[in-house]
């Protein structure tokens, strides 16, 4: 396993390097710059010039890039241009909230996705299958910005059982935090859960048609065990790969959901930093997301190998 991780390391580093170049280049291609954003709508050229000077935007692009990377390598993510504070602090603040949200959403994805998949594939009653289909279709068809508003209307405004938005850290007050977490996590999770459910349903149906299920049936194994012990473990490995990709989507999709639920996470930070052209924050943040994705891919591979004994790391 260590060998596997080590073998993947060079290409992972390569991705990060290329990603850093792309991020840097794309940001400079986007019109508008931090100085004009900071100057405000009524500023004159001398104000803009003064700010550019202060931020070091007059330097050549390669030197700006090297400055950024150099800072990263020495652990200094640099100051935020437009938002205020240090980029590292902003990101670590948002990271906590985003990790909570993504992790909770992931739990929802797994729980709902498994339920959708299992029920969709095996439910005897037609109406259960119809309901599952309706739910998965709805989850894919209704975009999160509508789902989110509807969830808030229902649970916060009408029923008054959950807060409409905001964030309390799980570390400070877990009981409250969970209530704040529920709606955004659900909203974020629904589309991915539907995708996972479809995938699992397919996998389970396929597995149930396999010869080894017939073998187990012939041995008199109970249908419930056929599903959980024989079919599901075979449907899981590919679903794990999907889940790995969906984690990327969850991180990315957080932009919308965090806005709707006033969730102070990385998505909001990214949007804010991008609209203000806060170069250091956007750069650090995107590179972090790429890193997370690369790591998640690696974990996915390891989990896949763990779930599927035919694959070995050596």
């Amino acid at each position, binding site marked *: 396993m260590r060998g596997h991780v080590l073998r993947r390391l060079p290409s992972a580093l390569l991705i990060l390097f290329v990603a850093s170049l792309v991020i840097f280049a794309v940001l400079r291609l986007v019109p*508008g710059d931090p100085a004009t954003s900071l100057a*405000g709508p*009524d*500023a004159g050229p001398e*104000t803009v010039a003064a*700010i550019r000077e202060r931020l070091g935007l007059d330097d050549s692009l390669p030197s700006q890039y090297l400055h950024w990377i150099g800072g990263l390598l020495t652990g200094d993510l640099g100051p935020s241009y437009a938002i*205020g504070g240090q980029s590292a602090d902003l990101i670590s603040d948002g990271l906590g909230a985003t990790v909570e949200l993504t992790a909770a959403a992931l739990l929802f994805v797994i729980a709902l996705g498994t339920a959708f998949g299992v029920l969709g594939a095996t439910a005897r009653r037609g109406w259960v299958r119809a309901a599952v289909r309706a739910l998965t279709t709805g989850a894919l068809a209704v975009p999160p910005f509508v789902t989110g508003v509807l969830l808030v209307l229902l649970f916060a405004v009408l029923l008054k059982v959950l807060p409409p938005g*905001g964030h309390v850290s799980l570390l400070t007050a877990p009981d409250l935090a969970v209530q704040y977490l529920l709606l955004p996590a659900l909203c974020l999770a629904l589309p991915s859960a539907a995708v996972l459910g479809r995938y699992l349903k397919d996998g389970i149906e396929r597995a149930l048609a396999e010869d080894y299920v017939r073998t187990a049936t012939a041995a008199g194994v109970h249908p419930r065990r056929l599903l959980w012990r024989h079919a599901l473990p075979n449907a899981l490995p590919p679903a794990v790969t999907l889940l790995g990709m969906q984690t990327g989507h969850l991180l990315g999709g957080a932009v919308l959901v965090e806005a709707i639920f006033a969730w*102070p996470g990385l998505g909001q930070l990214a949007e804010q930093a991008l609209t203000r052209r806060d170069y250091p924050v956007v750069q650090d943040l995107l590179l972090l997301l790429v890193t997370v994705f690369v790591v998640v891919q690696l974990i996915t591979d390891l989990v896949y190998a763990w779930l599927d004994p035919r694959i070995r790391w050596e």
Partner: protein
Amino acid sequence: RSAVSETGSAGQEGSAGPRRGGTVSVAINSDFTPSLLFAQSSQSYQHRLIYNTLTRYDDRLTPHPELATSWDYAADGRSITLRLRSDVTFHDGRPFTADDVIFAVKNLQNPARAAQLRSTAAVITGFDKRGDHELVLRLAHRVNNLFDLFEFMIITDRNSVEEALKGTRLNGTGPFKLTKWSPGSGLSFVRNDAYWLKDRPYLDAVEFRVVSQADALVSSLRTGQSQLSFQVPGRNLAVLKDHPDLTITPYDTGAGATYLGVNTTIAPLNDRTVRQALAYAVDRDRLLAQSLGGYGLASAAPWPKSSPAFTETGRTHYTHDPANARQLLKSAGHTRLDLPLLHLALPGDTAVAESLQYDLKQAGVHVTLQPTDPATAQKNLISQKMPALWTMSHGFAQVQPSTLAVSAYPFNEARNTSKFHSAEYTRVVQQAWTSPATGAAAGRLRQEISDILLDEAFIIDLVIRGNVQIAARRLHGVTLNKFSYLDLDHAYLAG
């Protein structure tokens, strides 16, 4: 514990009188930006909680004492003597003195601070300290918007200004101390027990909660999670109107105005007649009703009702008249124009742009919308790279009318986005800014500015928007100053 009852507005209105205690949660749609501390940004609500200003305008723009107790203008208008409160300390305990005022002015003169009133601050060329609490400011020339500056200029601790600009330490003399700024989620304040105004403030604490999404903002108010907000877009206000626990209070001071900007260097918009045609083509009332939820004042001139420059004839100088617009276009030799229109790619701005597009089309002006993200739009705006038409908002009409033309970039006589220049406009603006005239004479000068603005139509004002305050019914005593600094000195939660 329930996260709902935790923040819910539990009590009904009981005793009517002021009461100590309680926490007010304010929903804001964008976070505090420390680097914009000295510029007018879209979010300055916390300024007056942490800091004080020298004076404070009332509704008729008469200044009242804050940190300055009294003032005397020299007869030639070239200097002013300020007497300052002597019982004021900063949150860290350091006493407030004249040096802090000197620093505040000099600070605003620094271009890097991007202060809109820098031109006014720059007029102050000399400082004579007479003891710790009296100060004479010498002016390069007479200006008539000095109190705009005093309303705008927050008095910060001169020793920690760099930290303040990073958001790490905000040390002021105001009624609340900032305890924590969590970027992206909000600000927390606690009562300043040593506030110079005795027995104030009533509230124990104030929370600012960042809720960027309009719908989320609405939900936060509806559920009682927040008790106060000024940033619910007009379109979203409808659902709050009948809410039993909330009151909606529009301010008619006009914190901003939606306008249609015209680039006067692009043919045929260099022709005044064409610009006037555009001003007739737009249906301001419909815009107000449909895109802005009915909160605001349809007006062809930039002035809100509270402005000394406001006149009803100015407001209705242009009204919706497509026939007239077509007629004017025809007289200028056009039957159909195709022009781009830039707008911010935000839901509210897009609705305004769509509305304008339709109106203009009725007059034969076919515009292509260019939704643009705010940063790019800003860059185009201040580097004078706007396309033929654009729509945005401007501020500064709520204070002295002359401030508009010297501080609000769209109207700046020397350099504006419309690239409009006229010797006449420059003369009138400079005269209005520096003239000693008062009363009717001043009124005439203001009228001249209005006339030029209306006649030249390089900025076509559409709707004057005021702040709309949505507050919990039991929250009393909330006010805003002219620059939308939230003043909670006398605010209290009843019952």
